[in-house]
């Protein structure tokens, strides 16, 4: 069964509220927003992963040069 998407509408003029189905335009906008958000989140997570990988690689190279963990930590700050 397909979920009926609803919104709660609060009328500030009289304090009443009602639950109504989303309009087709609202459902389409909701889907557009969701897809845009998912794409942006995927991009952000990919950038974070790439940064973490680069940091790990840099630390490994510094260790190979003989730097101590304390010296490497000092470089990060």
């Amino acid at each position, binding site marked *: 069964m397909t979920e009926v*998407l*609803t*919104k*709660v*509408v*609060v*009328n*500030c*003029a*009289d*304090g009443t*509220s009602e*639950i109504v189905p*989303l309009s087709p335009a*609202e459902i389409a*906008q*909701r*889907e557009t*927003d*969701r897809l*845009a*958000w998912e794409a*942006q*989140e995927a991009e*952000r997570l990919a950038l*974070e992963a790439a*940064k973490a990988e680069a940091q790990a690689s840099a630390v490994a190279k510094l260790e190979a040069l003989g730097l101590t963990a304390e010296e490497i930590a000092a470089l990060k700050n």
Partner: protein
Amino acid sequence: MTMTLIETKTLGTAAAAIEFTSIPQTHTDLVLLISSRPASGAIGVILAALNGSSANFTSRQIEGNGSSPNSGTSTTGRVGVVGDSGDTANTFASSKVYITNYTASTAKVISADAVNETNGTTAYQILYSTLWNNTAAITSISLTSTSGANFAVGSTVSLYGITKGSSGGVVVS
């Protein structure tokens, strides 16, 4: 200055959106206090549509999430964080939204801060600066989540009117 509660709503059933209509045009600014949690799914942010429109927004944000700082831009009306269904049980994200000069025939500036509650690995603290480049007075505000999830039962949104005054006093009613 006076801060007057216009309306507050706590959801008794999950809903995809929460909308305030027929907003009185008698105040100077508006404030939304949002306590929210998604009924399902991962982290999402709260989007505002004003007068039924999701267009003409620009938004900038800075955030910390417990591991890395982040910043970004958007052409949507970002005003808060709805939370994550994996957040600490029975906790709700908290967002505060300030809309200046909502009846003026100029573009509307919106500032917001938001956090979600979690004892897990990721908790967001976000600041938003959002512009609605529209000269119409704001008469309705609709809130949705980018994650596509419903707002969970217990989510609460309160709309306040801020009215400027000359006395310098502050009254909350």
